[in-house]
């Protein structure tokens, strides 16, 4: 590998060769902490250092969390946190540049567990991903040492490798966790409710994977039945986690009142208070205990379809109110409709009907036309048929209920 400044020596060439031995193939079976630990062990060897620590930025991006260490007297105390901007590591993170200190001042003491008093010289480099600092790697020596440009370059190379591995593993773990969460929250088999035929489908998006779409059906102590479809903005693990919280909050409020506008108002208040960055659309419908009347309230959600026993569906253009989290004190209304025997509701998220190459109106018409009379399961199948066998860009959730 050519070296910056063209001053590669036999020594640094050999060190580089040894670093290259730290291949992803050899390490791919290790968990993240073990992988970082192995990288650090090799770094100690390559750079003749006495301590090496990897700190990763936490989820809130406020602290660096020590995740792996090598060469220190005692095993790394887990959960050592260094706030961004404080201590040595915190300073490297803020500058986003390598920092070398020949005589480290231990007086500040923010990170004594990571840089014991014996350590005299330290060198730290940022871990970067797409130009953003995601962590810090630092090494220390007991003997005073002036780190060379070669040392800095090598440590930066290790940090780049650590950063790549960390990102890859994080996104893999995030995806796996999001899928597991989604599965636990969206049962493929909805609860059975006497007199009501219920079916559901969920398809992850090609672009976003698992997202924040959800459906829910539950019976209430009052004998009413709650039916929900919703879409939390965003994608991946974060959207799935927020969806989980919003979904269970809605269930909790549904236990307290049978008025869907009231439930959505309380839910909106909760979202604005505790999820200030979240936004979600949701449609909440409540069937009365005889299953003959439905009361609906929409928080910015696309219109539901009334399915009929003897013809195509009918789009229910309700007056939707603002999405959850959009505006403090948004007004919420309800629409009440009778449901006859064999009639039902079909609810969906926008991924089902939104296409770049056609207007939303055409998408809605096409959907309504496709929902022929049949069981709830057949209705869901017909809806999935609209996706033409290709994975939609956005995730899609649909729910059909039909009165027996």
């Amino acid at each position, binding site marked *: 590998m050519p070296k910056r400044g063209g001053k590669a020596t036999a020594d640094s060439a050999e060190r580089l060769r040894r670093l290259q031995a730290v291949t992803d193939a050899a390490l791919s079976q290790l968990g993240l902490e073990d992988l970082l630990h192995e990288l650090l062990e090799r770094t100690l060897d390559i750079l003749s250092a006495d301590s090496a620590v990897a700190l990763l930025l936490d989820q809130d991006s406020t602290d660096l969390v020590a995740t792996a260490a090598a060469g220190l007297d005692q095993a790394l105390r887990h959960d050592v946190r260094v706030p961004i901007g404080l201590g040595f590591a915190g300073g490297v993170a803020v500058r986003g540049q390598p920092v070398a200190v020949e005589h480290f001042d231990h007086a500040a003491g923010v990170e004594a567990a990571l840089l014991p008093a014996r350590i005299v010289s330290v060198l730290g480099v940022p871990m970067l991903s797409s130009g953003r600092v995601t962590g810090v790697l630092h090494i220390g020596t007991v003997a005073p040492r002036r780190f060379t440009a070669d040392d800095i370059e090598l440590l930066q190379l290790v940090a780049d490798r650590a950063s790549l591995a960390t990102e890859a593993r994080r996104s893999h773990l995030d995806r796996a966790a999001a899928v597991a969460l989604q599965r636990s929250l969206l049962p493929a088999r909805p609860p059975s409710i006497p007199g009501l035929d219920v079916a559901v489908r969920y398809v992850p998006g090609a*672009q*976003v994977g698992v997202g924040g779409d959800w459906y829910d059906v539950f019976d209430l102590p009052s004998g009413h039945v709650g039916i929900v479809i919703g*879409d939390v*903005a*965003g*994608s991946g693990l974060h959207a799935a986690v927020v969806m989980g919280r919003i979904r269970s909050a809605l269930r909790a409020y549904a236990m307290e009142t049978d008025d869907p506008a009231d439930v959505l108002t309380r839910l909106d208040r909760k979202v604005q208070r505790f999820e200030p960055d979240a*936004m979600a*659309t949701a449609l909440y419908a409540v069937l009365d205990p005889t299953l003959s009347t439905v009361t609906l309230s*929409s928080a*910015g*959600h*696309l*219109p539901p379809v009334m399915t009929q026993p003897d013809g195509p569906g009918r789009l229910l*253009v309700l*007056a*939707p*109110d*603002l*999405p959850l989290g*959009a*505006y403090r004190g948004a007004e919420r209304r309800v629409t009440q409709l009778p449901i006859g025997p064999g009639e039902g509701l079909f609810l969906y998220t*926008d991924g089902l009907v*939104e296409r*770049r190459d056609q*207007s*939303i*109106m055409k998408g*809605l018409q096409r959907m309504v036309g496709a929902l022929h009379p049949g069981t709830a399961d057949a209705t869901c199948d017909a809806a999935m048929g609209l996706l033409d066998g290709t994975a939609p*860009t*956005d995730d899609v959730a649909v729910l059909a209920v039909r009165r027996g």
Partner: protein
Amino acid sequence: MTLSLSTTRDAGTITVTVTGAVDLSTAAALDEAVAAAVDDGPPSVVVDLAAVTFIDSAGINALLKSRRLADERGRQFRITNPTGIVRDVLDLTGVLDHLSG
């Protein structure tokens, strides 16, 4: 699909002109552009959607967030010229009036 954004300033108003598709992959850019406009401190921020060809829920959320941010900072916020498919989606999801100021 690409999105292009340009910002013009006129007396008390900053206008962010949006061209292209506002979707999951581009909504963040719109979000940032409008947030920057709001931070700039004009009494009024206008987002011109005349040249927007497509908007999905991520795009709508970006607009709602912009309006929320403007409210918090005590600025006026409104969208102008939503046409065709964009207008339909905003109307169907009940946010058109709210965003039009």
